[in-house]
């Protein structure tokens, strides 16, 4: 990778935007096969002390780099803007097409947060999807720029109380599309449950499920609630009351419309290194159940029923936490209509 760099102290958004255009023009003149990526703007608002950690996470998104990343670094007491703009590209062998990504870091102070929109607006690329990520809060900055963002990236698992994290996601969902990393942690589990209950004879038993157990990392309570919320919303189930502390495992019930049986839902905190879910068990009928548990190279499936037990492995590589941020960036260009209903149900579970 090669970089073209521009930097300035006490600068202005107009100067930053002008520098970006100049860098691109100069680079294109030197290397005509170069083309700027034009997929999405990513606006990140971070505390100066935690900038390194966020920068590392952004580095690890692999091929899912936003085309223009605008990193706003908030520094106590700062009154002026300093900026560094970087054009990052690979040299193209034999004149083949080469893509350039633009990264801008702007050092700002708390004084800028309330009207951050006036700083960002001139710098973002018009007409591209704009994704906002504020992992350290900065509600005033979010409120200022939300109107110009199409998508908000957040992690409902970031809050100690899942009810708080889910409530914030819900609030943001009214203003923009939300890509929730807590929701993305449930994706392989949702896919595998959908697949396991896809054969016609299995679809029928979905209405007779009586137990759902979700095992999860202690830091991923919102993910667990979202998985349960997803299943409840997809099955059109009404949720009952939920009890128990999140730390020791909540439990409650749900009832599918038109069905007599009650679904008992249990959450079981589980000690595992990776954030997210550890396993899920769905039980139906007299003695039938299917358990899916995290294992190397995919999920271990265990099916019980009619006095028999079968075990097998469902293949799939873990993306890991490094991969989940990149997946969040990719999801900003898609729309998942099932998140909203799952989120509403998850809020009831976590309340």
């Amino acid at each position, binding site marked *: 990778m090669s970089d073209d760099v521009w930097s300035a102290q006490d600068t202005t958004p107009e100067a930053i935007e002008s520098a970006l255009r100049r860098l691109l023009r100069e680079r294109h003149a030197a290397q005509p096969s170069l083309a*700027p990526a034009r997929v999405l703007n990513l606006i990140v608002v971070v505390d100066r002390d935690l900038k390194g950690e966020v920068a590392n996470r952004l580095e690890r998104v692999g091929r899912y780099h936003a085309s223009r990343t605008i990193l706003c670094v908030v520094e106590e007491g700062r009154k002026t803007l300093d900026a560094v703009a970087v054009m990052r590209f690979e040299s193209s062998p034999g004149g083949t097409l080469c893509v350039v990504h633009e990264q801008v870091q702007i050092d700002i102070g708390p004084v800028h947060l309330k009207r951050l929109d006036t700083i960002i607006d001139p710098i973002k690329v018009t007409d591209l999807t704009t994704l906002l990520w504020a992992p350290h809060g900065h509600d005033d900055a979010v409120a200022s720029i939300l109107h110009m963002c199409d998508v908000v990236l957040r992690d409902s698992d970031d809050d100690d109380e899942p009810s708080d994290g889910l409530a914030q996601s819900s609030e943001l969902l009214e203003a923009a599309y939300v890509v929730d990393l807590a929701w993305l942690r449930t994706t392989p589990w949702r896919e595998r449950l959908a697949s396991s209950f*896809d054969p016609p004879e299995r679809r029928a038993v979905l209405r007779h499920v009586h137990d759902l157990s979700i095992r999860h990392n202690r830091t991923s309570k919102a993910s667990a609630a979202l998985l349960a919320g997803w299943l409840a919303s997809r099955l059109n189930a009404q949720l009952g009351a939920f009890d128990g502390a999140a730390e020791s495992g909540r439990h409650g019930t749900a009832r599918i419309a038109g069905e007599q049986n009650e679904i008992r839902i249990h959450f079981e905190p589980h000690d595992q290194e990776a954030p997210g879910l550890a396993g899920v068990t769905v039980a139906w009928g007299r003695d039938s159940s299917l358990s899916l548990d995290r294992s190397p190279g995919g999920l271990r499936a265990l099916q019980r029923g009619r006095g028999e037990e*079968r075990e097998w492995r469902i293949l*799939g590589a873990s993306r890991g936490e490094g991969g989940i941020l990149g997946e969040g960036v990719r999801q900003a260009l898609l729309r998942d209509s099932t998140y909203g209903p799952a989120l509403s149900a998850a809020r009831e579970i976590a309340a």
Partner: protein
Amino acid sequence: MGAVVEQQSAQNPLVEGLERLPVRPTAMVIFGATGDLAHRKLLPALYNLAHEGFLPERFDVVGVARRDESDDYFRQLARESIERFSRRQPDPAVLDGLLANLRYVAGTFDEDRVYSQIGQVLSDFDQQAGYTLNRLFYVATAPEYFPVISSKLGAAGLARAEEAETRIVIEKPFGYDLESARSLNQQVLRVFDEPQIFRIDHYLGKETVQNLLALRFANSLFEPVWNRNYIDYVQITAAEDIGIEGRAGYYDGAGALRDLVQNHMLQLLSLLTMEPPASFEANRVRDEKFKVQSAIPPPTIDQVASMAVRAQYGPGVSQGKEVPGYREEEGVPPDSRTETFAALRLHLANWRWAGVPFYLRTGKRLARKVTEIAVTLKPVPHLAFQSKGSVGVQPNQIILTIQPDEGVSVSLGAKIPGPTVRIRPVQMEFHYGTSFVSESPEAYERLILDAMRGEATLFTRNDEIEALWGIIDPILTAWKEDTSSPIPQYPAGSAGPPEADALLQAGHHWRKL
């Protein structure tokens, strides 16, 4: 492309919103499991599907080939293929998991014992699962084995399974000419029903080829001009910079026309010119393709000389290196008349396209590797601008590049900055690499998954196969019958033979490679 998914979504409430849709548990049987296609494409594609979590929750593979070897041998072979050709670094745990589900059956394809052994292994898989897995037979062998494999599968009772779907994927070339394609269709259809048969052309699995449909039918910009009133001519180019790469045995019997024109290029032409289908259900799309293929009048033998050109590459310089001519390649007879270059001019006899020439050209050892479709619009009717001091106003072109840089570009006339109004063409470009963050999956990954799902839109139906051979057959016959005219030669590394220019109508020209 969408109907199977929509149907699934309607019946399974958990499917909505998911990108990776359920695929019924499947056992895949690969005939020719130790061959080049399995080695380079199929096994790495299966690994990538496993890595991404696309494979069904239960997935087993049986490799069938002549070598008298064991399961462990096949697993080791598959491991080497995947480690060498996978588009991503294999995850050891996923790879081990996939290899653990591989079995091997040794024998020749005409032995009954082989099929009873396959049946036994499939039963073992079913027993492990507790239900019958879908079957996907993938015939990745030389074409002469297609009929025997199909008929032996039928005789062994493997062409259908109770409570499960059985499908067969047949690689190209599907037939050698119209008669052999018809005969092969008949033989396979004696055993399998048409909805069970998936004739694969991996070009159709490429993102840009599928994007042709999106470009045409998801944008109101193009459809109004997509007809004889606005389009002057169309060129489809599939140029390769490599030679025959040691495949003389196959290539000298096939030639450029069979290798690329009969399948890939005519499929591109079909997608480019077909009418909008009522839905993207497989048969609706293939109905429209078939209609447009049927609208291409096959030439008479006498017409061939004026609408088709063949040539062979001679010695030359390719990518800075001196390379031999085709007839000097190892394994090629010195008097070979097999074409390494073919160019055609076709017309479509229908309302939309009457009078528009479609120029197709393909060749080996050309100047550059590129596959593209160039649609040239008619010039503006009156020009109010001066052309002095510039190249002037050129007709608009829409270029769809399939490879190497997948994308679309539109050439427009724009004013050159300055005090006078001078015009030159500029490019408005869309590149997959700059506009999407996702990596395109390999064509084989997409197509294997579609075959497992029973989604046939990107596969060729029996009537299409015969329609396409019907167009090509008279050209093959004319070239075969002409044993005396010299075959035009073009230097390796060049743009092809000048004889191809004779196909062009006045004012038309081949695009530079």
